[in-house]
């Protein structure tokens, strides 16, 4: 059982089948679900599953809806980003997360490893996305 930081292989194929649209407002709806350390997530993940998903005060199965940032180009690198997301007043223990396309069959996009259990207790649990540049953005294609 492990969660690795990886772009899902199925997502790479689905991009070429125009099954994902990250455009702000008019694009698909992407969600982020969080998982316990008992979950297995990584490049081979193909879709959202509730198995080993986090439970706790302030968390609803399926996770939070993300706010897309329309993809941009930085020199030779295309990148996309999301607004940070928070579970307020929550009591949660999570080891990783999965971003998935809830518009198109809950198809998996990227699995995110936190590196350790992260815990909120009657407080905020916030996922902070990396700088939207060619070296750090959450999804980069060059």
């Amino acid at each position, binding site marked *: 059982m492990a969660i690795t930081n990886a772009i899902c292989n199925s997502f790479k194929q689905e991009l070429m089948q125009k099954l994902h649209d990250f455009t702000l407002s008019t694009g698909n709806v992407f969600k982020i679900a969080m998982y316990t350390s008992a979950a297995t997530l990584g490049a081979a993940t193909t879709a959202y599953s509730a198995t080993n998903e986090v439970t706790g005060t302030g968390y609803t199965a399926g996770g939070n809806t993300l706010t897309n940032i329309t993809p941009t180009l930085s020199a030779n690198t295309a990148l996309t980003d999301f*607004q940070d997301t928070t579970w307020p007043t929550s009591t949660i223990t999570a080891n990783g997360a999965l971003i998935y396309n809830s518009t198109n069959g809950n198809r998996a996009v990227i699995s*995110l490893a936190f590196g350790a259990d992260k*815990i909120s207790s009657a407080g905020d649990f916030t996922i*902070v996305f*990396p*700088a939207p540049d060619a070296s750090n953005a959450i999804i980069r294609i060059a």
Partner: protein
Amino acid sequence: MDGNSGFMEAGFVQVATTQGGGHSLEFFAERIVAKLIHVSETAPPPIRDQALAYQERMYQVVLDGLRRAVASDRAYFLKDKEK
């Protein structure tokens, strides 16, 4: 990396949690500024220094705005409760 060298990479998120309360105003100010301006580590030093100074100024302006907003909201909330 030239235009013909294809790759797709995943970035790394960070997690910020709190116990018994929410994030500080400084946390939100930092996150807002990080979304508004990013200073490249490889930028020429004079440009980088200027950008960092601007970033710090933005941080102070945003933090001040957040403090005023919270104070205003609390004043409104208290007045509303007195009714």
